[in-house]
């Protein structure tokens, strides 16, 4: 194992030749243990692949969640709207006007004065007056007086005198379309559901 690198040294340190000879250093042979490559490569590949696939799946699932969120949001919106509409319907069912109309149709009237019945003693306080039809109140108040600009001239559609069905516009001659127009106007703006 004499390497050329050592030679200049021997030349220089001639004085201590002996010592040098004694203390001759030798290079420890390099022990090359070859680690098996396959597991490492596999590991890296698996990590890489796993990462990519995981990222992909993660992304997909996020995208999926986003879709789901949008769908749920839309559903929540619809349900909230439905709830509000139902609440509005309920409010209108509770409208005193409606309740009174039904009650009056059933023959009930609002009494002129209350009478109290004490459940313990069974005695009444107040003057007992018979409820009569005359006490029924007029439930239909007069319609509000419409301003003049709300009695517009009807929209008249000139129907062409020709009898050829091909040249007439189906919409303008459709009797149901024109007939329902005043009805729609009377019902007003979107008050139905």
């Amino acid at each position: 194992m004499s390497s050329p690198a050592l030679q200049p040294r021997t030349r220089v340190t001639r004085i201590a030749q002996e010592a040098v000879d004694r203390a001759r250093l030798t290079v420890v042979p390099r022990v090359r243990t070859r680690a098996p490559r396959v597991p490492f490569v596999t590991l890296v590949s698996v990590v890489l692949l796993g990462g990519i696939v995981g990222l992909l799946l993660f992304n997909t699932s996020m995208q999926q969640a986003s879709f789901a969120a949008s769908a749920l949001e839309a559903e929540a919106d619809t349900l909230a709207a439905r709830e509000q509409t139902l609440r509005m319907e309920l409010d209108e069912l509770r409208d005193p006007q409606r309740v009174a109309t039904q009650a009056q149709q059933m023959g009930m009237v609002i009494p002129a004065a209350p009478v109290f019945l004490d459940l313990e003693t069974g005695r009444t306080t107040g003057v007992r007056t018979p409820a009569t039809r005359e006490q029924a109140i007029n439930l239909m108040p007069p319609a509000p007086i419409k301003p003049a600009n709300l009695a517009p001239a009807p929209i008249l559609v000139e129907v062409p005198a020709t009898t050829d069905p091909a040249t007439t516009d189906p919409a303008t001659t459709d009797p149901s379309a024109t007939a329902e127009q005043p009805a729609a106007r009377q019902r007003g703006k979107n008050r139905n559901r």
Partner: protein
Amino acid sequence: MVRLRVGFLLIAMVLSFFCARLVQLQGVDPGSYAVRAAAEGAVRVPLVAERGDILDRNGVPLADSIKGKMVIADPALTADEAPELARLLSERLSIDYFRTLTALRGRKEGSRYEYVARRVPSTLATDTLAELDDAGFEGISLQDDPIRDYPAGDVAANLLGYMGTDEPLGGFERTFDEQLAGVDGEATWQSNSGKGVRIPLRESTLRAARNGAALRTTLDRDLQWFTQRVLAQAVQQYRAESGAAVVMDTRTGEILALADVPTFDANEPTDADEDDLGSRALNDTYEPGSVQKVLTAASLIDAGKAFPRQRFKVPPNLARQDRVIGDWFDHGTIRLTLAGIIAKSSNIGTVLAADAFSPVQLVEYLQRFGLGRTTDIGVRGETPGILTPGEAMTSQTKDRVAFGQSLSVNVVQMAAAVNTIANGGVRVSPSVIAGSAVTDDGTTVGTDVATRTRVVSRQAARATARMMEKVVDPEDGVAPGAQVPGYLVAGKTGTAQRVAPDGIGYDGSTTVSFGGFAPADDARFTVYVVVHAPRVDGGGGSIAGPVFSRIMGYVLGRYGVEPTDGPPSRLPVEW
């Protein structure tokens, strides 16, 4: 070799093009490109704040907001199939066919955005859109457009006001808009499909909408409804021009009902006459007539200048400086007590009794009753009425003021004044807002800021109430029709001439009224009814009295107030 050079040259040329483009993109105006890139796929959604409800005293909504949609057409896509589409839309949404047709064809050439309908309930709109999608129609889309709904229609409409297309146009809606409106928010995010699906992990912002706060009133919806119907019936029956009625809680001054006739449906304000949209009860003045006499009498008793059994000789006519004062009924010289003067509503007697007062003294009392200044309950455009200052008042004017002429009031002012007698001489300032709220001119109103001031002594108020009981007495009084069976009722009629529209003199029509409270010996409610210009002959007792009776009977029953067993008033009316 040549081939290689040509190749390099080509590559160099292509690369230099790329370089030039790079410099153009990044060097010249990078900002605008960045903005355009961000805008591509950016979704910006306005989050509409929900308008606060207006509630009655029990939390029942008088006005509420529900989700709605506006239906928008893109005429570029809808024009071809306009008739079919219009027919379907007008049927489903109950809108005008011809207007829909015009919108679908585009009101202007090249228009891409037309309103077909606004404020359609959300469920109806989405159902209709789904139906259109199924039928293969294109070009119709929806956007948020909240609906203001007044579930009970005309109930309290004159106070609530109404909404225009986008802003409040009257009543509480406008006065308390700042509280009710809330603040709109906005959400932005990146979307890929244009269907509103977010791209995750991309920039998105959310500024949540702040919903409006509810406004709670002291009104009672059912009572308000009943009051309106009964009043409307009387106005119709007597072919009157208009009417107003107030129900007040005697002890708290809370207004439980404040009805105006004619009124309107708050859902359809444009269907009614513009003059009917405000609250006449507060915006219009009128001369109160004889109801005023109880204020004069209570003041006199409080000042120690009169007492209920005090005797007056009432002549058939009373000549005062500028003109002769008469009574509504013909009589010779009659001998009435002060109680009789109130029960029979004698002008002459009241003037004689009020002679003990100087104008300054009388006006001072009336001002403490709340006349001549606004009640500030939070209703827009309230009139303070007219009460001439005492120093400027002539004795003739004072004579007329004593029995309710030559001064003018609004309905709530007068109700609060009568309520002062009911409440043992303490005036509670009326309120229609529960808690407190700030109006658009910065005034805080509501029950939290209600004030109590003593106007007359407890004894004076009691004595006046005793005299007022005589008014509904079948034998001695002028308004037996105002009685509520089983209850002690105290009240006072009023029949006043109406000032001509030009403000000079009287026009021959009258304002009839009845103000009173029950149970008279422990008052819980004050009801005041005014009917303007009835075309059927009658006075406060015959026209307003029965309305008072109906409303009072209903409110006593509704709030479970049992009849008191106190003795009825035994004051003599004559001597």
